[in-house]
């Protein structure tokens, strides 16, 4: 099972913040395809400028394999302070 977390405006686009996917997709890229098939608007938002992905709390560029139970977070541009 992969745990998928959406932050900021991505959660508003999707209408959810956290979801489990069973079984865990083999790769991050496959999870992206799955999310875009379910929700075209979310798929587009995930490809938007400045959106980053983190797997098990590590920022990832490109595609990597996912271990079963992986936590995948999609992070839109950040703004604190």
């Amino acid at each position, binding site marked *: 099972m992969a745990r998928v977390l959406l932050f*900021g405006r991505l959660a508003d686009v999707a209408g959810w913040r956290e979801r489990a996917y069973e079984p865990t997709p083999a790769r991050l890229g496959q999870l992206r395809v799955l999310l875009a098939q379910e929700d075209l608007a979310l798929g587009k938002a995930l490809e938007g400028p*400045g959106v980053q992905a983190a797997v098990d*709390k590590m920022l990832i560029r490109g595609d990597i394999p996912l271990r079963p139970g992986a936590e995948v*977070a999609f*992070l839109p*541009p950040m*703004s604190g*302070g």
Partner: protein
Amino acid sequence: MIRLSATPFDPQAALADFSAGRTKVGAIVSFLGLARGDVAGAEALELEAYDGFTEAAIAAAVERARSRFLLLDAAVIHRVGRIAVGEPIVLVLTAAAHRREAFEACDFLMDYLKSDAPFWKKEFGPDGPRWIEPTQRDLSDLARWG
């Protein structure tokens, strides 16, 4: 010390704690950020963080500041959740032997927190909620540090 707080914090108490018992420190700089209503009628901000990930990212920035500016210590307190306009949202404290290092490290850490730290900020105004993303000014402030 890095703390994310879901409830209001007391900046004076944090500064007193941070300053207590120092013998090698000649300078402490504090920056206190308040939740500002960007548009007329804005009532509150909501700040989201990613548990564990956000604290680790701030800790890594504090380590960069520590080696770059000969910093002796630093503390960051950042509010999360719903914050009323006018309430403290962030406190950065830096301690060094001399003031220049403490000023620069505090400035560096605030530029990082503003544009690069994992927070997402929503403003609740008269036209409904909207997400705030870094401004061009925030990004050029951050770029000053290379």
